[in-house]
């Protein structure tokens, strides 16, 4: 069919030349607002809304001190998830990619984080009146990278056999940990007292609304994940489209989370960029449905419209 014929056919749908019926736009909108308001109030009264208390570094250090110290040690020696993340936090890796395309690097390191300095050293340096601790931190900082790695690796291995004590401290098998054996218990005590929560939010100004550092620190540990698993929120459990408890969550994210459930995305190191690329293409296709041959014709091939306009067609018949 020629473009002219196509245009002529489409022209028939531009203006309705048939009959009309009375209609009250404002009345309909007002009733709709009333109905929805009533429905919302009913759902609110019946079900309320979830509000699970947030975790803190303090609560994490108190409930699972071994996991906290293990995570903190990986922050100190630069092997944690955040320390090895790459942009936008550091240059430790190039991040995810599709072929040679690395969107993660486009805007560089916009939120620079040195996990050893920001998560361990600087908070400990803020503790006054502990000369032994400050000497230990200085000794660690002045040691060679090789020596630091030897201490932290030995300490991390020993943490696998560490035990939590009833007073909140941990017992680590004896070994050659250098100043790390002083640094980590001190950080644990600082965290259990609530000091680390504040230290991780410290900035150059009084007001603070950026929780990037404490959230990244906690996300590297096991506390958030164990809570999420109990609330069926893990990625393998359809992740963030769920909600805590039995409440409906962001069900509109089902197609995003769907891809993470199947291979190759469920096992790919580049899953996030791949899923975002697919969703970008699908979103564009969704917007451009009127221009996509075949997709735009399905409504004609599967005549749901006969149900929608059944009164109209019945009247014409």
């Amino acid at each position, binding site marked *: 069919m020629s*473009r002219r*014929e196509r245009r002529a*056919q*489409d*022209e*028939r*749908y531009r203006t*309705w030349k048939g009959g*009309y*019926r*009375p209609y*009250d736009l*404002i009345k309909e*909108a007002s009733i*709709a*607002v009333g109905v*929805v*308001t009533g429905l*919302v109030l009913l*759902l*609110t009264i019946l079900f309320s*809304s979830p509000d*699970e208390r*947030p975790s803190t570094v303090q609560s994490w250090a108190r409930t699972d001190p071994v996991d906290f110290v293990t995570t903190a040690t990986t922050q100190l020696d630069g092997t944690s998830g955040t320390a090895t993340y790459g942009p936008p936090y550091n240059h430790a890796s190039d*991040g*995810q990619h599709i072929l040679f395309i690395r*969107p*993660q690097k486009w*805007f*560089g390191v*916009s*939120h620079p984080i040195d996990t050893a300095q920001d998560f361990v050293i600087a908070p400990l340096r803020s503790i006054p009146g502990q000369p032994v601790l400050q000497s230990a931190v200085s000794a660690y900082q002045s040691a060679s990278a090789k020596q630091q790695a030897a201490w932290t690796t030995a300490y991390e291995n020993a943490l696998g056999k560490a035990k939590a004590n009833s007073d909140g401290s941990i017992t680590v098998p004896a070994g050659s940990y250098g100043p790390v054996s002083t640094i980590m218990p001190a950080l644990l005590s600082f965290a259990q007292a609530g000091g680390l929560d504040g230290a991780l939010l410290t900035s150059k100004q009084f007001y603070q*609304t*950026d*929780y*990037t550092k404490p*959230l990244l620190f906690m996300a590297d540990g096991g506390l*958030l994940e164990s*809570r999420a698993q109990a609330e069926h*929120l893990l*990625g393998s459990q359809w992740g*963030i489209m769920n*909600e*805590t408890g039995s*409440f409906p969550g962001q*069900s*509109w994210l089902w197609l995003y989370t769907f891809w993470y459930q199947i291979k190759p995305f469920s096992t790919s190191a580049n899953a*996030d960029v791949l899923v975002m690329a697919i969703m970008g293409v699908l979103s564009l296709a*969704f917007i451009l*449905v*009127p221009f996509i041959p075949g997709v*735009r014709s399905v*409504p004609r091939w599967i005549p749901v*419209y006969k149900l*929608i*306009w*059944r*009164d*109209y067609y019945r*009247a014409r018949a």
Partner: protein
Amino acid sequence: MSVSNETSWTAKVRERAVGALPPEKLLADKQPVYVASWIYVFGVLSLASLIVIIGSGSILALKGPGWWHFTSVGHFFNSTHLWSVELFFFFIVIHLWGKYWMAAWRGGRARVWITGAVTFLVAIPCALTGYVSQQNFDAQWISTQAKDAMNAAGIGAFFNLLNFGQMYSYHILLLPAAVVALVIAHVLLVRKHGVVPPFEVRQTSETVEAETATPPVEEVHS
């Protein structure tokens, strides 16, 4: 002495606006006879839900982001905000499916579809920023999980889900403003073009593709 308005930008904008949407079209008191199905209700229900979302969200904004955690009244309004969002997405999804099966882009109405589809897509991050602004465990988990997709897509530099202040700004101003602007554009386009008429059933199968097709953009918008 007469006053000429030929060069007045204001007059030109007014004449163009009134020409495209005369009052009887903007606030119509009649509809084509075929607009008689329950499926048509979901558009206005989506709009009504958006109004309730904005209303409940405004009350929460008035008292600040921490209020709802410590007061029963605040928790009540948070619940109304949550359920109006759930209803909004429920209604808009049905509305979009309904419009798809009507091929509602026919007859120069491609922009009506596009503004509706983009509204849905913009509403998704609008809701996401709300979830990460809750200041509870839900916000902690969602933000730390979803950040990887944002970073991988290259937008983490200016859309940092872990930055509460930034997300709150997105949630209560930038994204709602975009959604409202899109909805206004969508509704005005619906008023301008009218509701798409039914398929003409007498046509043969050879005309199917042509009938549901949309001419090139310049023709659609002419």
